C-alpha cells in the first residue's frame, strides 16, 4: 500500500509537469528540434502529419471534451478545407495564405450552416446528424467529378512559396521548411485555441458540457454558445484540412468518409478529452502506432482497435487523462485549472 | 419477522440519504412508512429492493442477508415491488404486464391470471389495453396485480394514493386489504397519513433520512407532538 501511494504521488507530479507550463515548453522545444533529431525526410513528414492531426483533434475536442457534443462528422472539415485549398490554389490563385484562409473560411461557413441545425439536438441525435451531414458532403465530393475529380481525387496540389512579393520568398518544397511552416501555423492556432479554452467563453462551454440546463438558467442562450463552439471547431478543422491538402499534394473523398471522422474521435479519446493537449497527444500516438505497425504488417487497425477497446474498458479518461486522473482537478482547465487545491 | 433492516446507510452518488435506518416487518403485517417529501421513504424501499443498495448495514429477508443481491434475485425470493408512479410497461398490454410479473417463476406455483382476474375483474375487461391507455387508478391496480403475479410474501408499496381521486384511493385501500387477507405482508410508503393509519398494524416515521418513531397506530395517534412535528402542517 505504501509503495502504491508514493507511486501515485510520483505519477501525479509527473502529470502535473507534463501538462504544466514546463511540459508545454518542453514540447515546443522538442517540436522545434525535431527535424534535427529525426534526421530523415520520412520522419519529418510523419512529424508534419502529426502536427496537422493534432490541430484537427484539438479542434474536435472543442466539441467533445469542452462542450460535451460527440460529433461523428468532423472529417467534413478536413475534407472541405482540403478541397477548398486545392481548388483555389490549383485553379484560381496559387497562394498559400489565400488557400489557408479560404479553407478556414469555407469551413466556418459550413459549420455555421450545419450548426444551426445540429446544436438543437443533443446526444445520439447530435452524433447522427453530424454523421449524416458529413456523409452528404462525402457523396457530393465522390460524385461531382467535374469539380472534385470524383473518386480519383485531386492530384498536384501545390505548395506555393510564401514571402513578400519583390522582397523575399521562401520555398516550402523542402520537407524541413514545410515542417517549420506547419509548426508555426499549428502552434499559433493551438495557442489561440488554448486562449479560448481558458477564457470565460471556454469555461461556459465546459459548463454547458456539465449541465446545459443550468447554463440556460444563469441567463445564457445555450444554443448560441454551442453554435459558436461548432463554428470554432469547424474553422480550426478547416485550417487543418488546408494544411493537409498542401502537405499531401493529393486528396480524395476518403478524407470525408465517416471512418475518417471516427479516427479523429479516436485520437481525441486516445489522448484524453478532458485535457487540453490530450487530443494532440492522441493524434501523435495514433499516427505513430500506425506507422510502426505498418512497418511489419498491414493490419494496423487491429492494433489501434484493440487499444481503443482496452482504453474504453479500463482507462476511460484517455492516456494523458489517466495521468491527470490522479489529480482530477487538473483535468478541467488544462494546466490553468483553477480548481487546483 | 420476515424482513429486518439493520442500520442501513444509503447514498445517491455522494449524497448521504439514509442514516442508520432500522425497521422490520412480520409475516402478514401491514407496516406504514410515513414522512414528508424527501424524507427518505422511497430510498428505503429502493434499498430493500436492491435498486439503490445500501453502502452499510444489513437487510435480512427470511433470515438471509440480501443487501448484496441484484434486484431480480431479491424479487425472486418473494418480494413484490409497486413503485411510485407505478411504472407500468406502457407498450405492453395489461395481460402482458401481468405475465411479466410472473416470469420469474417456474409456473404452477401461486398466482395465475385467472386468480388475478377473479380478484380484479376490471383488469380482465382491460386485458387487451396497452399500459398507456389506463387511468391512474387502473394503473395502480395493475401495478399491484403485477406484483402479486410474482407470488410475494411481502409487497413494497410506494405512495399508492398519490394523484388519485378520493373514491379511487378507497379502492386502493381495499386492494391492500385484499393483500392482507391473502396473508401477504405490506410495507406501505405514504404521505396520506390518515389513509395509511387506517390500514396499518404498525407505523414508522422517517425524517431527514432517520427513523424517528416506530410503534403501533394507537401510539402514534396518542402522540400529538410527534404528529405535528413530522407529519402535520
Amino acid at each position, binding site marked *: 500500500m505504501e509503495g502504491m501511494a508514493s507511486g501515485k504521488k510520483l505519477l501525479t507530479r509527473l502529470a502535473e509537469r507534463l501538462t504544466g507550463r514546463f511540459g508545454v515548453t518542453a514540447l515546443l522545444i522538442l517540436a522545434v528540434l525535431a527535424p534535427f533529431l529525426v534526421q530523415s525526410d520520412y520522419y519529418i513528414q510523419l512529424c508534419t502529419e502529426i502536427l496537422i492531426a493534432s490541430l484537427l483533434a484539438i479542434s474536435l475536442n472543442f466539441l467533445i471534451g469542452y462542450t460535451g457534443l460527440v460529433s461523428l462528422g468532423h472529417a467534413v472539415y478536413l475534407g472541405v478545407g482540403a478541397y477548398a485549398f486545392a481548388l483555389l490554389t490549383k485553379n484560381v490563385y496559387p497562394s498559400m495564405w489565400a488557400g489557408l484562409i479560404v479553407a478556414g473560411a469555407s469551413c466556418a461557413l459550413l459549420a455555421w450552416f450545419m450548426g444551426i441545425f445540429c446544436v438543437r439536438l443533443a446526444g445520439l441525435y447530435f452524433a447522427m446528424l453530424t454523421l449524416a451531414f458529413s456523409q452528404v458532403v462525402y457523396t457530393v465530393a465522390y460524385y461531382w467529378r467535374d469539380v472534385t475529380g470524383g473518386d480519383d481525387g485531386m492530384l498536384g496540389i501545390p505548395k506555393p512559396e510564401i514571402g513578400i512579393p519583390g522582397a523575399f520568398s521562401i520555398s516550402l518544397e523542402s520537407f524541413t521548411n514545410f515542417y517549420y511552416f506547419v509548426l508555426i501555423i499549428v502552434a499559433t492556432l493551438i495557442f489561440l485555441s488554448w486562449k479560448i479554452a481558458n*477564457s470565460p467563453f471556454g469555461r*461556459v462551454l465546459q459548463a454547458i458540457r456539465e449541465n446545459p440546463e443550468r447554463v440556460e438558467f444563469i*441567463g445564457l442562450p445555450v444554443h448560441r454558445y454551442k453554435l459558436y463552439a461548432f463554428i470554432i471547431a469547424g474553422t480550426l478543422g478547416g485550417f487543418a484540412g488546408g494544411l493537409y491538402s498542401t502537405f499531401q499534394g493529393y486528396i480524395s473523398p476518403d478524407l470525408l468518409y465517416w471512418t475518417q471522422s471516427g479516427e479523429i474521435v479516436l485520437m481525441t479519446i486516445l489522448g484524453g478529452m478532458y485535457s487540453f493537449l490530450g487530443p494532440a497527444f492522441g493524434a501523435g500516438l495514433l499516427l505513430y502506432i500506425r506507422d510502426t505497425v505498418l512497418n511489419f504488417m498491414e493490419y494496423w487497425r487491429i492494433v489501434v482497435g484493440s487499444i481503443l477497446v482496452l482504453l474504453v474498458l479500463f482507462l476511460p479518461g484517455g492516456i494523458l487523462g489517466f495521468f491527470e486522473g490522479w489529480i482530477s482537478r487538473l483535468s478541467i482547465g488544462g494546466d490553468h485549472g483553477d480548481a487546483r487545491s | 419477522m420476515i424482513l429486518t433492516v439493520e442500520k442501513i446507510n444509503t447514498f445517491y452518488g455522494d449524497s448521504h440519504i439514509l442514516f442508520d435506518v432500522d425497521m422490520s416487518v412480520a409475516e402478514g403485517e401491514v407496516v406504514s412508512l410515513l414522512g414528508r417529501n424527501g424524507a427518505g421513504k422511497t430510498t428505503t424501499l429502493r434499498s430493500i429492493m436492491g435498486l439503490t443498495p445500501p453502502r452499510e448495514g444489513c437487510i435480512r429477508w427470511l433470515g438471509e442477508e440480501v443487501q448484496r443481491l441484484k434486484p431480480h434475485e431479491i424479487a425472486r425470493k418473494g418480494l413484490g415491488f409497486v413503485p411510485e408512479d407505478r411504472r407500468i410497461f406502457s407498450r405492453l398490454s395489461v395481460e402482458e404486464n401481468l405475465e411479466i410479473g410472473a416470469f420469474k417463476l417456474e409456473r404452477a406455483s401461486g398466482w395465475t391470471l385467472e386468480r388475478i382476474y377473479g380478484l380484479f375483474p376490471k383488469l380482465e375487461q382491460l386485458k387487451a389495453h396497452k399500459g398507456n391507455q389506463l387511468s391512474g387508478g387502473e394503473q395502480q391496480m395493475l401495478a399491484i396485480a403485477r406484483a402479486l403475479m410474482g407470488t410475494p410474501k411481502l409487497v413494497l408499496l410506494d405512495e399508492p394514493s398519490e394523484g388519485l381521486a378520493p373514491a379511487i384511493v378507497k379502492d386502493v385501500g381495499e386492494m391492500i386489504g385484499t393483500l392482507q387477507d391473502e396473508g401477504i405482508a405490506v410495507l406501505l410508503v405514504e404521505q396520506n397519513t390518515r389513509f395509511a393509519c387506517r390500514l396499518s398494524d404498525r407505523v414508522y416515521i422517517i425524517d431527514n433520512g432517520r427513523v424517528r418513531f416506530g410503534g403501533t397506530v394507537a401510539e402514534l395517534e396518542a402522540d400529538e407532538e410527534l404528529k405535528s412535528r413530522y407529519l402535520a402542517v
Partner: protein
Amino acid sequence: MATPVLETWGLSKQFGSLLAVNEVDFQVPKGELCAVIGPNGAGKTTFFNLISGKLEPTAGGVFFEGEDITGLPPHAVVNKGVGRSFQITNIFPRLSVLDNVRIAVLARRGKTLDMFSPIEKHTEEQDEALVILGEVELEHKAHHPTTELGHGERRNLELGITLALEPRLILLDEPTAGMSMEETSSTIDLVKKISHDKTVVFTEHDMSVVFSIADRISVLHQGSIIAEGTPEEIRNDDLVRLAYLGEEV
C-alpha cells in the same frame, strides 16, 4: 398595493390528460418571502417551471414587474431579473466551486463572450464570486472541485449560483432538501437574509421552516391553489388539513 413583482393569471399546464397546474392566479408583492407548499405531486415544481420559462404554459400568463414574460426561454427570463434554484441539486459538477459561481457572475456582467483573455484576469468578477461564496459559507472551498462538497454544501453552492445573478425575484425549489438539521438552520438564516432586499418565492417540505420564516403561504393541491394567507391562517384552514392529512373534515 404597488404592482406585484410576480403575477400569474389563469396559469395552466396540461401533460396529456393530467392537468398539472390548473388556472393559478398568484401574486407576490415586492420584498415578500412567500412559500408555496403542497403534497407530493401537487404541481409545485411544474409551477416553478412555468414561471421560470422551462415549460410553456398551456394557458394563462406570467408577469414580472408588470411585464409579460409568458413563454420566454429560461435565459431570457433570467436576464429580466428572475433567478431560480432547483429541487435536485443543479450545479456544474466538474468545475471548481469558484467557477460555478464565477460563471454566473460573468454571465450577468455580459463577459461570457470574451474569448481571448484568461478567466483569471477578470479579477473583479472573481472577487465578487468569492464574496458570494463567503455568503454561502463556501469561501474556504473555492478552489476545490465540487465533488469534494457534502450534500448540504452543494445545495448552498446552488443557492450561490442563483445569488450571483443578482435577481430581483428568487425562486427557490426546496432549498433545504436532504439537508441535515444544522445545515437546514444555516440555510434558513441565509434565505431570511436574502429576503431583506429581494422578493423570494420558495417551496419547502419542512413545515417548521415554512411556518417560521414565510410572510405568506400558498397551498397548492392537485394543481390548484386551495388556500392563501399568513402562516396562522393556513395552520387553521380545514381544506389544508384535508389535503395534507387526508382527514375528512
